[in-house]
């Protein structure tokens, strides 16, 4: 179990984290979700021991590791750009964590080699052990970085924007594969992402961060359906904010025959399995996005329609961040 207690961090005059509290259970898959500058990567690096907090504590299984450097925390860290050692073969990269151990803790050479081969199989790169990182594709490099981090049998796996440098198709495949791997190996993992779709799809719980604070911790269902703040509502999924203070998801708006709110349609296009209608509120010109089932007929561009909310949220002043 990981417990993060009242972590505060400043970089010069720039406050990166304010009083972060977080508890993670063994076996959980956690997403730290937020825009750039939200402090999510800093929090990940502090949990890893690559960066140190100004105030607060980090506990691993009840042990205070606040001042222990990364090499002694037994965490696997996967870097955004992978940070593979380019002059070493893939197999040597994976074995690195074992070969640098002190002689008395180091497995025999044959065993290290066998372990590297086994990990190559786990990450589905059998037969590529003699290649160099420069000869691999982005997705393959990512899996080498993962295998290298897993080689030291970490108690916690940390991934910094693990899919950030990959193209959309590879990203999707790797995502599914990583979630399966996490379950199979019984890992406890935390990953950082700015992509809400990624967070909702992969994580058991999502930690939504903004400006160095945690806005909400919850299951993907909770953060999507019951956003705690206006920020979460806008960052996780799309939200229309109407002048009267209501926050409404595009798919929670329906077009009705008669209504108080009237929208002038500017644009209609297909978005995945539904129609996306973009328009402006008659009175204020506020932009409104509406999703309509693809089997229904969308309004025409230039038409004015009445809308009604099937479900809306109103946030208190404290939740208006």
């Amino acid at each position, binding site marked *: 179990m990981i417990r993060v207690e009242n972590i505060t961090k400043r970089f010069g005059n720039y406050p990166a984290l304010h009083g972060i509290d977080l508890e993670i259970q063994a076996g959980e898959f956690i997403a730290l979700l937020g825009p750039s500058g939200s402090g999510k990567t800093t929090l990940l690096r502090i949990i*890893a021991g*690559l960066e140190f907090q100004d105030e607060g504590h980090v506990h691993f299984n009840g042990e205070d590791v606040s001042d222990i*450097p*990364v*090499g*002694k925390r037994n*965490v*696997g*860290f996967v*870097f955004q*750009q992978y*940070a*593979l*050692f*380019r*002059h070493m073969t893939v197999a040597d990269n994976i074995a*690195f*964590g074992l070969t*640098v*151990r002190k002689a008395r803790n180091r497995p025999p050479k044959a065993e290290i080699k066998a372990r590297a081969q086994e990990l190559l199989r786990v990450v589905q790169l059998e037969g590529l052990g003699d290649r*160099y990182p*420069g000869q691999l594709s982005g997705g393959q490099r990512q899996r080498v970085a993962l295998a*290298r*981090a897993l*080689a*030291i049998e970490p108690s916690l796996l940390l991934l910094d924007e693990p899919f950030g440098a990959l193209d959309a198709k590879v990203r999707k495949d790797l995502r599914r594969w990583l979630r399966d791997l996490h379950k199979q190996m019984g890992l406890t993992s935390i990953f950082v992402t700015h992509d809400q779709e990624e967070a909702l799809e992969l994580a058991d719980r999502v930690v939504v961060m903004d400006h160095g604070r945690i806005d909400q911790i919850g299951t993907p269902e909770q953060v999507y359906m019951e956003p705690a703040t206006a920020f979460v509502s806008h960052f996780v999924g799309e939200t229309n904010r109407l002048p009267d203070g209501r926050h409404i998801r595009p798919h929670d708006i329906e077009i009705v025959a008669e209504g108080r709110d009237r929208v002038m349609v500017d644009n209609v296009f297909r978005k995945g399995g539904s129609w996306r209608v973009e328009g402006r509120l008659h009175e204020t010109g506020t932009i409104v996005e509406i999703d309509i089932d693809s089997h229904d007929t969308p309004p025409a561009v230039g038409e004015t329609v009445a809308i009604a909310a099937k479900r809306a949220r109103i946030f208190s002043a404290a939740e208006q961040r």
Partner: protein
Amino acid sequence: MTRKTRKVTPGTESRTAQVLLITLALAFLAFFLMLPLIAVFSEALKQGIGPFLDAVANPDAFSAIRLTLIIAAISVPLNMVFGLAASWAITKFSFPGKNLLLTLIDLPFSVSPVVSGLIFVLLFGAQGLLGPWLSAHGVKIIFAVPGIILATVFITFPFVARELIPLMMEQGKEDEEAAVSLGANGWQTFWHVTLPNIRWGLLYGVLLCNARAMGEFGAVSVVSGHIRGETNTMPLHVEILYNEYDFVGAFAVASLLAALALVTLVLKTVLEWRFDLHSGARH
């Protein structure tokens, strides 16, 4: 001269300009670089190979060559270590005074070598700040080999660091962080991760440092005292021979220095080629 009567299209005009510019550049290179180089070797071998070999084998010339090699053998490894340490500190850590350190590293480049030499005379010379104390303890620095080494180390300090800092800056510190996160200690990280990443740049910096250490004239001239057979390096020896109208001798020793420059140039080209290849295959 041919007169241009034909209508000039933009294409042919730029072609003419091209040829003109290239010819100009080649002529400049030939006049300022190739010609002197040829002159050095032809003057050295003017009276045949015999006098050339005699001049090189002359005891004073021999001692100058020996001293130059000793100076390089001491100052180059020192500056390799200093340069590595400075680049490592500047690129992998943040600390107060970092910018000042960066500026200080460039100091030897911005100060005239003669002034650099004078600094050491003012510090360690007989009338210098530490002079009386040093002579009381029988330590001789100025007009002796230690002074020449000091001056050379000072002059050649920036070469390795200047080569490594941009390279290490660009590489960032993720590789080192990855190594440390996998349990490597500082030495293992340096040896297995940092050094292989910078080896070509380091070698290149050492090469330039070596060329300058052997060829330095100004600063060494001030601190050496020009004692024949004792404190004369090759560049100083060339000057003395030339002033004594021993042209064959002067050019013979000079040709050795020139040969060193050529070897450095070839090695540098080979390194750059390897280096490009290496960094090109990185991503």
